[in-house]
């Protein structure tokens, strides 16, 4: 069976490498970018089966912006988005509940950093299928 492709956009390279290792070990092909611009290029070049987005990158809501833009693009809107964030404690926003509301947060899943390998793989598997 062909390996599914995942694109991760996160500005933390160290975290990116670890996530990549976990996902590749789970039999996925992983592409990564460290900002929105780079992410878009990869996205257009080779649309993945899942996109993982960090929320706070160059700006405090770059990930949200990118998710909204992806969901507006007819060619890309069907690709599931998994948001990763470490700011839910401060913003007080219930991302998990909001993730199901397409008008509010156009993401299909949400995980709080740091995430355990097992939990990550399970979420990825559920979203891709």
């Amino acid at each position, binding site marked *: 069976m062909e390996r599914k492709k995942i694109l991760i956009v996160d500005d933390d390279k160290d975290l990116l490498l670890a996530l990549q290792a976990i996902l590749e070990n789970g039999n996925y092909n992983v592409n990564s970018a460290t900002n929105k611009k780079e992410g878009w290029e990869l996205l257009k070049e080779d649309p993945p089966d899942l996109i993982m987005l960090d929320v706070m990158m160059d700006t405090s809501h770059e990930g949200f912006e990118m998710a909204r833009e992806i969901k507006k693009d007819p060619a890309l809107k069907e690709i599931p988005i998994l948001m990763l964030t470490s700011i839910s*404690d401060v913003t007080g926003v219930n991302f998990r509940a909001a993730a199901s509301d397409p008008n509010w947060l156009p993401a299909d899943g949400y995980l709080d950093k740091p995430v355990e390998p097992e939990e990550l793989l399970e979420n990825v598997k559920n979203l891709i299928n």
Partner: protein
Amino acid sequence: MILERRDIRLVKRTFWLIRHRWFAIGGVIAATLLTKYVFKVELQDLPLYSVALLLIIENIISLLWMKYILKCCPENISKTVKFNIHFQISVDLIALTLLLHYAGGIGNPMFLIYSFHMVIASILLSKTGTYIQTTFALLLFGFMVYFEYTGLIEHYCLCKENYTNLYLYLDGNYILRTYSVFAFASYVLVYLASSIGERLRNQEDGLTKALDKLNIQDEIKNEYVLRVTHDIKGNLAAIQTNLAVLTQKIMGPIDPKQEEFLNRAYIRTIKLTKFVKNLLRLTKLRLDEEFDMELFSVSVVIQSAINSVQSNADEKSINLIYKLDDKIGSITGNKLSIEEIITNILLNAVKYTNKNGFIKVNAEDNVDHILIEVEDNGLGIPGDELSEVFEEFYRGSNVKNIEEDSTGIGLSLVKKIVDRHHGEIWVESELDKGSKFCITLPKNLPVN
């Protein structure tokens, strides 16, 4: 162009003046009608209505002028608005003098109405501006009285058969006494009112500045907390995930001796992440005024908390029993936080209860509040430490050696959240017998 608060206040008060003038105009018309038709006093009603018309025109001009100022040139607004106020007060004073002239001159005690304008000027204008308007009022009044006295202009009386003092306007002695007392009283009034007015204006400015400063600081603080959280947690997340790759042998097998050290580092990172998370939440709770409130069912929240710890209890074969009163309704509060504190207390109970022990959850509706109790037959808390349980960084002396995973923040966070809901929390405990945590949450949150 953003107006300063001081200017906004001045503009608002000017519009207030314009609004109130409509009542004054109504008053002039009503008083004329009343005097003529109810009190049957002869008076010059046509000139009086004309003055009312003059006031209407003045008010419309002032209103349009103010709108124009706001639209065209907000740069020097305080100056132009004050010019508008000077216009309004001056026209008012002329109108009042005309009214007095046509309604009995100095014989009519209505001349005291000049004081209203003096007080309004003290509130809206500078001290100098106020004294200028007061002097203008006294000059108008003085000339009117003097001209009537000398016969340069006609005197119109408010006449009725049984009136006796129809010739006050010719009584030089009376005029002199009345006028000088009125002039003296006017200047004293203006001195007092404008001194107080100025002091209040300065105080208001000081408070406004302090408020602006606080708002800016609040924004900086929130941005700071957000950044710090992101940076600390971001670094920890990277460390923890990288360690997970190694300890879970994702990159292949590792030496058992090395694994032991890596595992220790991994566990401590998890602990540190949890600690930082709680610490940040505590800081946020302490700093923040806002707390999103919603109406939710307490039973549902308790049930959900129980479900989330069930597997932890099962692992230790702890019997988790619960009894939720059917009558328990909904309360207003922060649902997520309430679920979090119940889960927290339940997890503590699981942690400090031995295998095959029990945990009982009881919730009941007590008219104005809801009582939630979580009881266990675990390790208990030493009697002399009961008062410190909810303090930050408290860890029971009897559990320090057994349980390394505790940060001592969980219960203080629980207490903070209960406090924010105006509820109460307390604990009853006996060493080696168990503990009972009780929480009450009011059904109707007091406003503020």
